């Protein structure tokens, strides 16, 4: 009995990747410290909640790491279809919160189907390319693009710029790693550039346009949309090289930073830990992403290669977009800082991704 449990435990641990585990654990530790600082002054610490979130997400990661990529592949199509169905459901019967329809009410629980798409999208496309590996033609890229476009349009319609960006990135990276020719990418960028004025005036919502304009000149609207960026850059800049010290961020504790425990937590971290802390943070994210890319490079099947590559780069996109927007060089979109921001949903999605990376790393034999 004991030996079986031991064996089982050893098997389980064998499917974990130590470098990833270490980096993620460090990031989550920094996250806890920062969430505490960001919420302590309100007298309503979110620390306990976040620990529960992390434990749950961690368990899920361990569970997923046990699943072989081949088994994962089986989930691809059903998960994608369910995801699409739910997104259509949101489109038709969604619950509006703050002017956007992102939620679907299923009796007791409310779910956000776009979040499922963050996982389902790369799974689906990786599966698709894997299935057609031997007969891959340009048309398959076109089909993949359609498979990607459908959910993105549905999510954009909600509207949710941040999630559509992440889902789009996840799908795009699969297609990219599958070998989308540079010529086509170049052509598409040119086309996108040409379509920009049209998208600007027709497809973007007012608030989205405002965010872009605000990025270009935050001072144009210091009390409105620009306020977030102005206050977060003040927080970051005033942190200086070494930071103001944990729990000493004035911008944080006097409530100048909006959304300070979620999307803008990077400002809190930067203010209190300075450029030194940021260097550590960036280093950890670099390690995380490159570790994922190495896993991708040595993955045995096309499916696992594409999936691992896409997951790694999505992690990069998460981190880059979030820190970029908080420090004022990217427009404000709803993207959390991975493993640091408060919130269970994002954490679960991220850890599912990390779990899959571990599964791909450790299930070498087919």
């Amino acid at each position, binding site marked *: 009995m004991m030996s079986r449990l031991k064996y089982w435990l050893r098997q389980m641990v064998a499917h974990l990747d130590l470098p990833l585990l270490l980096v993620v654990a460090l990031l989550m530790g920094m996250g806890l410290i920062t969430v505490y600082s960001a919420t302590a002054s309100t007298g309503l610490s979110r620390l306990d909640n976040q620990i529960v979130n992390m434990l749950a997400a961690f368990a899920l990661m361990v569970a997923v790491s046990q699943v072989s990529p081949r088994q994962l592949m089986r989930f691809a199509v059903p998960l994608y279809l369910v995801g699409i169905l739910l997104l259509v459901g949101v489109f038709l019967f969604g619950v509006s919160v703050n002017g956007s329809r992102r939620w679907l009410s299923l009796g007791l629980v409310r779910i956000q189907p776009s979040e499922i798409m963050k996982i389902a999208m790369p799974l689906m496309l990786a599966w698709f390319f894997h299935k057609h590996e031997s007969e891959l033609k340009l048309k398959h890229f076109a089909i993949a693009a359609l498979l990607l476009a459908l959910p993105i349009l549905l999510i954009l319609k909600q509207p949710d710029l941040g999630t559509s960006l992440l889902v789009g990135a996840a799908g795009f990276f699969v297609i990219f790693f599958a070998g989308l020719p540079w010529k086509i990418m170049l052509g598409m960028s040119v086309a996108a550039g040409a379509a920009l004025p049209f998208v600007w005036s027709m497809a973007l919502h007012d608030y989205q346009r405002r965010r872009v304009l605000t990025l270009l000149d935050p001072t144009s609207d210091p009390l409105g949309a620009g306020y977030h960026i102005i206050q977060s850059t003040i927080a970051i800049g005033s942190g*200086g090289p070494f930071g103001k010290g944990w729990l000493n961020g004035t*911008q944080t504790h*006097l409530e100048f930073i909006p959304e300070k425990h979620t999307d803008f937590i990077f400002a809190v971290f930067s203010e209190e830990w300075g*450029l030194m802390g940021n260097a550590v943070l960036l280093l950890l994210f670099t390690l995380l992403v490159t570790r994922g890319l190495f896993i991708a490079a040595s993955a045995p099947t096309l499916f696992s290669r594409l999936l691992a590559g896409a997951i790694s780069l999505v992690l990069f996109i998460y981190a880059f977009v979030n820190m970029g927007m908080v420090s004022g060089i990217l427009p404000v979109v709803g993207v959390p800082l991975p493993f640091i921001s408060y919130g269970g949903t994002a954490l679960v999605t991220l850890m599912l991704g990390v779990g899959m990376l571990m599964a791909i790393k450790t299930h070498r034999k087919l």
Partner: protein
Amino acid sequence: MQNEFSHPDQALQKFRHRVRLAIVGVPLFFLLLFANLYYLQVTQKEYYATRAESNRISLVPVVPNRGNIEDKNGVILARNYSAYTLEVTPARLQNLDETIAQLAEIIPIEAKDIKRFKRLREESKNFESIPLRTRLSDEEVARFAAHRYRFPGVEVKARLFRQYPEGTLAAHAIGYISRINQEEQQWVDEALAEQEKEAGRNLTYKGTTLIGKIGLEKNYEFELHGITGYEQVEVDAGGQAVRVLSRSAPIPGNNLILTLDSQLQKMAEATFGNRRGSLVALDPRNGAVLALVASPAFDPNLFVDGIRFDDWDALNNNPDKPMLNRAIYSAYPPGSTFKPLMAMAALSTGKRTPQQTIADPGYFNFGNHRFMDDKAGGHGIVDMRKSIVASCNTYYYHLANDMGIDSIARFMGGLGLGKRTEIDIPGESTGVLPSPEWKAARFKKREQQKWFAGETISVGIGQSYNAYTPLQMAHALANILNYGRVFRPHLVAAIKNPGTGEVRTLETQPVREIPLQREHVDFIKAAMAGVNKEGTGARAFAGAAYESGGKTGTAQVYSLKGQRYAGRAKEKLRDHSWFIAFAPVDEPRIVVAVMVENGGFGATSAAPIARQVFDYYLLNKEAHSPAPEVDAPEDGPDHDHEEAEDAAP
């Protein structure tokens, strides 16, 4: 069939190539991010650190305590008391009306409170905190404290309120404070900018919401206000103070110590009863104002936290005009009280000696006009003394004619008539000193601008365009009694620093000198003493234990100034009653000018008031209040009468 996508080796190679690209690209992107962070946190650190500091630190002004006003004996006439107010900052509320309705469930808020709040709101900026209810009881404060969390943007503040413990007493002199308006704010800013250079420090009215509107409260605004202090406060994004970092204490305003004797003032006010009128009592030796009465008065306390509409309405629509400072603003023809001044002018200019006499037939012919004396048949042979004691018009018709208007205007202007006395409260009027120049400037139509020699004749008895304030009359008399030394009338004797207790006495040096000869002045004094012994003032001063001088006067309501009363109740058609007086005769310590509107003969209603004031001031004798009207003296009515129209051929 294999192609570039499906060939396993080729595809794998391509994949690996792209992964390598990503492995290089990702750190590069992060490096870009890092470069920006370096820029923010190292290059621009100072800038952002400063911004963070100015975000977090806010300078909160601490309003100094306004100085008290006390009379010469230390009786407090204006002070501050602390009370709780419920204040609302409209900018921080979602729905103002709803919040007020919810507050009303906890603390009684009446319709008039809301009315006042709305009015104050119109006058203030949106982010200012505006009182909704004042003078909360302890219980109300406690009840709000329990519900405080429900009302962001609503606070209970301890505020200092101005209080005038004596109510209406000397209200016109003291004035009142009320909410600063934009014009006053501008005035304050400009005045402070000037003072700053001298003081060498930042002066500000930040946080101050009240300012002196009239009276001493206005004139001594900067003495009373004090110097605003500062608290350096850490604030959160909502503007709420979190803690105090440093503090520079405010310097409280100075106390004013008045020349006014509140007991005398109280007694003098009481002598008026419900009559309209005014009184100015000066110490001729230094210009100190001993009492300044304008009756009826108002209660300055009404204004302090924003006057209610109905109170304001009542004050404004009262036909007796209680807000009017009759003592310094209302100018009346001086009537016969002008005669001693004319006599002084005659002596000074050498136009008359005391001994020179005229024969008074009861009229004075000028051209084909006949100016009448009041006494039918005239006063007979009249010298200067008799002209004052018996108040002989004919004497002054002659005199005015002999002197000419220019000479009269020059002398009276020298005495201080027709210009402000520069008393230390605002709102003084200049009165009217008639002269050809004045007339040319006063009227637009050419035919009205011309000065007629006949007009000079009626100027001689204090009629015509002559109009002076009671303050001017008291001032002019004091200047004569002082042998020409002119002191500025003033209400403030000294300024006391409440912190150090240091008292700074304001200088009472003569501001100028009028060339008057001692024997001339003594002659006028003696003649005026005669008025109170055997003339028109004799009845009012019968049995006085001191020697006093005086002169009655009656200003006709039918003339220029009185026009507005036409058609009103009969009482309003009665003439205005004047009395100017001083005592004791040897070394005068008090000069008064009394004006009772529609009081009839000066001897009847104004003189008894002066008697009571003198009795009180010189003998410390309690008076009857109000002063009784005495019967007209044996001498017959002192009623100046000018009958230019029905002159005998």
